[in-house]
């Protein structure tokens, strides 16, 4: 792989803590200028993997390359990466500007130039004029901005973000997500974000690696992950998905004919089939928004089924219905955008459910 299309390269990275196998053969490439996320539940190894890039964790075998250079034996302070810590790690004994300028000690520039660089970095993160403040007097959001400025002022090739938004409240988190995206576009540096929040990963990333138990389960852009999750596990972790058992009737090289209770016979294109063919049964997956409740006067969709409403969850802009399709055991979740003048249905009401075979995925 040439230098220009891989900023980070993991080559069969393994990490053991004693007997515990924390990273199980990670092989992946992160492109320059990309906003990349490592997503997974706690304990899946995402933070460990991030720390192998920073140089805080040794790897047991394999290789980690940054900009084409093998990082084996390179200490953390000599790596072209900087990190925003989960706790932000803002030095409490230093002022804001001393924190931001911490890494400039050996910078050959004059004192005045360094002070200007610190001022610019603070302005970039929206903290102009905060330089003289004591670090311990800052709010969580401000600490995070200081941590960002402190890392970005060193112009790293890669910025590592270890769950930087998890300590903020929802509103602040959403605001910082937008700011981080803008900042990343502005500086053009590769950002690698560790998060357990699938929504955060979908909103912010160019590409996402979903990790389970020390392995990358799927690496793709957000839309592919959402529409074409390659396993039930990934589908379940990212958003909500309805799973229905299905029976394979006919199997061809380009399509599969299946039958799912309540939905009848379905023709599934090969591109919608995830996983290798196994003789056991298959599972059909539907996102809640690919199913629609049809009101009177709605044009008929590709396919229709009848069902009874089991549960209604009202969200303001959306309503979630759990609908039990006739002939099935478990209800499916359907999300509907609320439209003015269209009533929210009641529990127990009968409903026509419209769906399209093109919107489903088949897990083998």
């Amino acid at each position, binding site marked *: 792989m040439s230098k220009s299309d891989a900023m980070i390269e993991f080559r069969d990275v393994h990490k053991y803590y004693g007997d515990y196998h924390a990273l199980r053969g990670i092989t992946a490439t992160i492109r320059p200028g990309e906003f990349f996320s490592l997503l997974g539940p706690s304990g899946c190894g995402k933070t460990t993997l991030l720390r192998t890039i920073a*140089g805080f964790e040794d790897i047991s075998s394999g290789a980690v390359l940054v900009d084409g250079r093998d990082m084996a034996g390179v200490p953390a*302070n000599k790596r072209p990466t900087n*990190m925003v*810590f989960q706790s932000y790690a803002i030095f409490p*004994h230093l002022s804001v500007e001393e924190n931001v300028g911490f890494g400039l000690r050996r910078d050959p520039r004059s004192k005045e130039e360094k002070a200007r660089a610190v001022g610019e970095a603070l302005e970039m993160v929206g903290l102009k004029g905060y330089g003289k403040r004591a670090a*311990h007097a800052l709010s969580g959001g401000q600490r995070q901005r200081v941590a960002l400025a402190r*890392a970005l002022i060193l112009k790293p090739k890669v910025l590592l973000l270890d769950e930087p938004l998890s300590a903020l409240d929802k509103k602040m988190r959403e605001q910082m997500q937008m700011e981080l995206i803008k900042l990343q576009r502005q500086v053009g540096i590769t950002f690698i974000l560790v998060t357990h929040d699938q929504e955060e990963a979908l909103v912010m990333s160019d590409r996402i690696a979903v990790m389970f138990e020390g392995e990358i389960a799927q690496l793709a852009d957000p839309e592919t992950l959402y529409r074409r999750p390659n396993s039930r596990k990934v589908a379940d972790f990212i958003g909500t998905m309805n799973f229905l058992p299905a029976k394979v009737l006919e199997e061809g090289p380009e399509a599969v004919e299946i039958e799912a209770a309540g939905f009848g016979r379905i023709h599934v294109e090969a591109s919608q089939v995830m996983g290798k063919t196994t003789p056991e049964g298959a599972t059909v997956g539907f996102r809640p928004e690919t199913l629609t409740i049809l009101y009177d006067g709605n044009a008929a969709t590709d396919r229709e089924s009848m069902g009874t409403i089991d549960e209604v969850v009202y969200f303001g802009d959306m309503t979630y219905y759990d609908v039990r399709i006739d002939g099935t055991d478990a209800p499916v979740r359907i999300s509907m955008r609320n439209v003015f003048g269209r009533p929210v249905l009641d529990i127990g009401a009968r409903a026509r459910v419209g769906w399209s075979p093109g919107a489903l995925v088949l897990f083998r």
Partner: protein
Amino acid sequence: MASNGGTGGGSGRSEAASGLLLISPPLVYAVLLLAAPLFMVVVYSLSLEGGGFGLANYVTVWTDRINRLLMLRSLTVSLSVTLVTVVLAYPVAYFVSFHVKPEKKALWLFLITIPFWTSYLIRVFLWKVILGYNGVINSGLMELGIISEPLQAINYNVQALVITLAHAYAPFAILPIFVALEKIDRSFLEAGRDLGESQFMTFLRVTLPLSMPGVIAAVLIVFIPTVGDYVTPDLIGGGKLPMIANRIEGTMLKQNNRELGSAIAVSAMMVVAAVSVIFLLVNRRFLRGTK
């Protein structure tokens, strides 16, 4: 804090009252056994021989060359002890905090306090045996033919005093420094490394300043009691190296001059307080803003 106090004055007052009740036994104890005697000493120091009150005793204390000399020796000894103790305690505390496995730390702290299992007098005598004219070190070195006559540098002098006291106070210095080091979030050290500093520079720029509250506590804990130490100069110095406390004892008991003895005691206290306050002021930037 202020907002907590504002939740109704009545409940706040009764809370304060029950708090006062809770601390009253030690409070009474402290007033009777600490504040009252201290007050008596101050009163004595201001009483004049012919009745009435005045500063004459203090004038006598400070015009006496011997008092000034002994005060200076006390300060020299205790400052040296403080320096030696804290400089030697820091690496021990650092080692236990950073390099000992968490489950073994309690054991290490326990081992550090083992010297306290022996009486202080016995420990002082042991040092006398080790450092004395015919002590372990001198006879050992002579046996080996390294020296031909006993070293004068280690017995009955200030060095011997400093060695003995530094050993005695080591745990007092290790523990506060250890606590300060334990409180440092390890991500600060990773941040230091991440921002391009070597391990040593990270220590200087992050670990050391963040552990300063512990160092300051250690300095005060060692400095304040050693100035007034009374047993060690008597035993190690063999009566030839009195410090200010020995002078106070001599004046108060042997010469039965309570007024002058009290004046020396209060003067020594003032000097210790002044040195401590100056030290705290110099280091106040390390104490502000600690979480």
